[in-house]
């Protein structure tokens, strides 16, 4: 019994000592998905930038996937400020999934800190496609909506589908008539386009550029509000007269009821990071576009996006209209 007791104490002490390096980390990132995905890369990129630029001493990362991100959100809400400085990375899906009810939380249950980067929606066709411009696509859709099959790397009702439906709506076509073909993952959707079984691919700009730069496809349009500095030749929907824009932001959230000084501290760190050369290396390496929006501006964008998406989703029948 005595042996057992001393063993227990040693273990306790050991784990406290050995686990404390974790607690001393200046900033801890919570990633609501497994390693290697978009969220993970963003968090690690930002963390890398912060440490290399000397803004933080240590950055640690915790992956917590499940429930479409809901698990990590729940964890953040529960742990609050007990565990030190935690920033959770997320993007547009948090707004989307809250609307469909896939996650029982919304961004309002957390403290939005800032958005860092943005991706836009883009539409791609194969090089030998009869549709040379986006206008051609709209024309074909008007004549026969089922003639165009749109591929996307996510399930029905998620981002790729909604962006396509919204774009169609801006062109005067009922979003519900869009034939969206879901694939599991952007890679398979790309394969679907290149193999010819679908005509159009709705995906993020970065992925669209990958396929286009490979030489087998063209980007017909992008959903950014203004022309892209790096790719001015890609027409924006707005420039072609279609009133539609979509921004897939990626940013950070903190626990709810965050004290004001903590919030200011995090925001200051991220703001400082934006102008460092270390961040520019990370950004350029990944092909991200900067979109820094601080708290109030960020919240405003979130509200705007939520309202915009809500309307589209109701029209498409993905959420019931509120009575």
């Amino acid at each position: 019994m005595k042996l057992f007791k001393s063993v227990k104490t040693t273990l306790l002490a050991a784990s406290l000592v050995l686990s404390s390096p974790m607690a001393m980390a200046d900033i801890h990132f919570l990633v609501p998905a497994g390693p290697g995905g978009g969220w993970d890369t963003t968090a690690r990129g930002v963390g890398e930038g912060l440490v290399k630029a000397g803004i933080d001493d240590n950055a640690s990362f915790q992956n917590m996937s499940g429930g479409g991100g809901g698990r990590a959100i729940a964890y953040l809400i529960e742990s609050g400020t007990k565990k030190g400085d935690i920033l959770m990375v997320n993007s547009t899906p948090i707004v989307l999934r809250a609307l469909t009810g896939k996650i029982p939380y919304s961004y309002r249950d957390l403290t939005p800190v800032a958005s860092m980067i943005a991706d836009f929606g883009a539409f791609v066709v194969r090089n030998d496609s009869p549709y040379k411009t986006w206008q051609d696509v709209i024309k074909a859709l008007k004549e026969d909506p089922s003639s165009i099959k749109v591929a996307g790397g996510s399930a029905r009702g998620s981002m790729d589908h909604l962006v396509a439906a919204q774009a169609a709506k801006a062109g005067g076509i009922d979003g519900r008539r869009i034939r969206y073909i879901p694939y599991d993952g952007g890679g398979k959707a790309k394969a679907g386009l290149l193999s010819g079984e679908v005509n159009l691919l709705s995906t993020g700009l970065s992925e669209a550029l990958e396929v286009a730069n490979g030489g087998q496809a063209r980007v017909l349009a992008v959903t950014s509000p203004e022309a892209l500095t790096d790719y001015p030749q890609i027409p924006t929907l707005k420039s072609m007269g279609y009133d539609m824009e979509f921004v897939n932001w990626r940013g950070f959230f903190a626990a709810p009821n965050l004290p004001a000084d903590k919030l200011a501290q995090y925001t200051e760190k991220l703001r400082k990071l934006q102008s460092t050369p270390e961040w520019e290396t990370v950004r350029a390496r990944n092909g991200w576009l900067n979109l820094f929006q601080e708290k109030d501006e960020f919240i405003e964008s979130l509200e705007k996006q939520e309202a915009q998406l809500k309307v589209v989703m109701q029209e498409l029948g993905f959420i019931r209209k509120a009575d």
Partner: protein
Amino acid sequence: MFDGIMLGLSTVLDFNNLMYVIAGCLVGTFIGMLPGLGPITAIALMIPITYSIGADSGMILMAGVYYGAIFGGSTSSILINAPGVAGTVASSFDGYPLAKQGHAGKALAIAAYSSFIGGTIGAILLMVAAPLLAKVSLSFQSPDYVVLMFLGLTAIAAFSNKGQFLKAMMMTVFGLMLATVGIDPSSGTERFTFGQADLLDGISFLLIAMATFALAEALINVVKPEKKDAKSLNDSDTPQIGSTKLTKDEVKDMAPVVGRSSFLGFIVGVLPGAGATIASFMAYATERNLAPKGLKEKFGKGSLRGLAAPESANNAACTGSFVPLLTLGIPGSGTTAIMLGALIAYGIQPGPMLMQENPSVFWSVIVSMYFGNIVLLILNLPLIPYFAKVLAMPKSVLTVMILFFSLIGVYLVSFNTFDLFMMVGVALVALVLRLLAFPMAPLLLGFILGDMIERNFRRSMMISDGSLSFLWDRPLTLSIFILSILVLLFPLKDYLKQRRADKTASKLQQEQVQ
């Protein structure tokens, strides 16, 4: 092409890169051996390290980890029936029985040689025909996957011996059902989730594989230990590994199997929608169907062919999955998806232009595969007796270790303890089923294929606007479909022959009596 090979050789023969090949293979083998912990996590975490060493070296390192893991995964599949990597699950079907019969050494040797040959053939095909293969990978559309998976399902016949057919069917249906849990991607509806957020993404294959194989196996040995001599569990079994040598006849018998499976595996790997796991199952089923009567029954009980087939196929598939990755920028599996991310981060654009713009990356990865395969063979063969010593651990310790590794392996992927509870539940069910003599393999097959068949089927229906004509619209689809019908009817031919033989025999008997 020869310039390419020269370029690749000169890059790989650089001392640093050789070190990376070896390092990657070592790390990969180690990770592959640990049941549960997979190459995906390892590679994802390695990426930041690779930023500083350059694209060529980075890819060489990661590729080494990838096929090293497939190599290493066979070790734990064979020795403790706990597959280290999803692609090695099929190797345990015959590998583990062989080990139990005292031939662990031979099994490990067969796995090593088959993997080596599979990987090398894959590398040769990759080198010779990469651009051509790119076209092949793009010519497969959703309907083709449907019939291909259907062909795989007909392999159920492969897993059942006479009395077991209905039981295998039940397990397959069970697997198909488990695959429907979660959000249906085609429509976004929740199915069988009972309000549990953790079930929204469905059940992971790794979870099911570890629970039904590793956990259930460990537990069944506790509930029904083999009564060799009434040894207590605290003593260690003398490691009966047997020799690692293979006789000439054995080699001759396995040669065509290895050859066929390598090709099959490579082609399956080339398809963006299928990877090493499916390749290994299909090779296993194919070889079983092609085996002559006497050898057919040995499958599942320690058939050398049954081990060689999936082993060659999974390594070949692993190599094959580099085709869509490098030539089209389309990842064929989770691991290649991570590598794609790395390529992009290096600023390299995979696609048809890769060979022109960055030939060194392309060729050095391919050439490194040869070296990688050789390194793996050299590493693994002499170490076999040491690996087998694992069996020498006292059973009490070994069992608990297996339980631990299986649990933590799944945890390290999702960091969700709900998954662990699920594993225990599934293990309990699997344990009961095994005690009732139900085969586990069809469950896994149904699970994997069910998911793919449904997705591709629904997609094909959507693309064809609701008609089933996609089954015969294109010659490729039609031919695979006919092939699977034939495979399904094949055992019927044997059955009819048997009936006729029985009839003649009984007729003769009657005549004799009269």
